[in-house]
């Protein structure tokens, strides 16, 4: 299974169209391996992006440098996946 240890999901709030456009620039940076769960669209609409661990610092610095607000929506994706797997295993065990 692919490992998502340390991957965070950030919820970004772009205050105006210029900030939306800045976030769109991030989409073009393939080396960051970003996975947009909710794409940049309009100012005020949340933008959710999964950031692999090695890219977290770069992305946060980019956002802060452009005064774009964000918060960490999911601290560690892998922890949620493990929780999900445990729940599914428990459900199967109950059936057996």
């Amino acid at each position, binding site marked *: *299974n*692919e490992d*998502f240890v340390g991957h965070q*999901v950030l*919820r970004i709030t772009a205050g105006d169209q210029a900030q939306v456009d800045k976030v769109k620039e991030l989409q073009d940076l*393939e080396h960051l391996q970003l*996975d*947009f*769960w*909710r*794409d*940049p*669209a*309009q100012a005020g*609409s949340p933008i*959710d992006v*999964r950031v692999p661990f090695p890219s977290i610092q770069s992305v946060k610095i980019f956002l802060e440098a452009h005064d774009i607000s964000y918060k960490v*929506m*999911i601290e560690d*994706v892998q922890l*949620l*996946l493990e929780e*999900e797997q445990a*729940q*599914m295993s428990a*459900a199967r065990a*109950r*059936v057996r």
Partner: protein
Amino acid sequence: AQSTSTFNYATYHTLEEIYDFMDLLVAENPQLVSKIQIGNTFEDRPIYVLKFSTGGDNRPAIWIDTGIHSREWVTQASGVWFAKKITEDYGQDPTFTAILDNMDIYLEIVTNPDGFAFTHSTNRMWRKTRSRTPGSLCIGVDPNRNWDAGFGQPGASSNPCSETYRGKSANSEAEVKSIVDFVQDHGNFKAFISIHSYSQLLLYPYGYTADPVPDKEELDQLAKSAVNALSSLYGTKYKYGSIIKTIYQASGGTIDWSYNQGIKYSFTFELRDTGFRGFLLPASQIIPTAQETWLALLTIMEHTLNHPY
């Protein structure tokens, strides 16, 4: 599960478990439910649709698909719940019984089987199909950018490594082509509802152009009614509107194609995320999500029944 009554609707299931569930449902309700194979995936998995029908030839029909983006697990799980709900409510709920007495319902629970299997085996975050692109190491096409509706226009990517890669041509994906062929061969679909997650939206065409659809006023009113019905159960807040106005420009999308085929009541849902969990919605929210969505579906289906065209 030994029967669909003992099936656990409050947990996520693998492709095999869902396909077994479908067989159980058909076996338990042979007069109402049948399973149709409409094609095979890139990796040669069968693509199944459940047909709910009380008789008649080629009745007007309603299409519902769930899970074209494989990682949106609450959609496939909701599809399973809808299938059971249909068998339970027929003959019990007068509104729904009237719908199924006059129309057929086709439900595709796992619309992207290869991708769904991959989310269970290898990469929980996989969204696309699993087809190969010659000359690229990247795999998969976004099946919600591969339809013949504004295909190739802004709002999709030509880069095979992108999550919104549109594919080399419209209908290049077997998962899309199978539906296109099936819907066109049938020729009598009156509603087409494609279900995604997350972000709590009910959308109507268009996504590839800002031009309003000719039926905008009616679709907007119907979306409003459907969202009100949905919210009445648990207070879940939805926005509604056209794709391009409500989220962003997206070309090659499913319901833009269905609308352009003449299926007026074309909608797409983005189901719940109330807990900031995105695609990792806790399984405890599957049933509430499906329950509230069902109310919106009923609203659209009832309107379709009462407004023949």
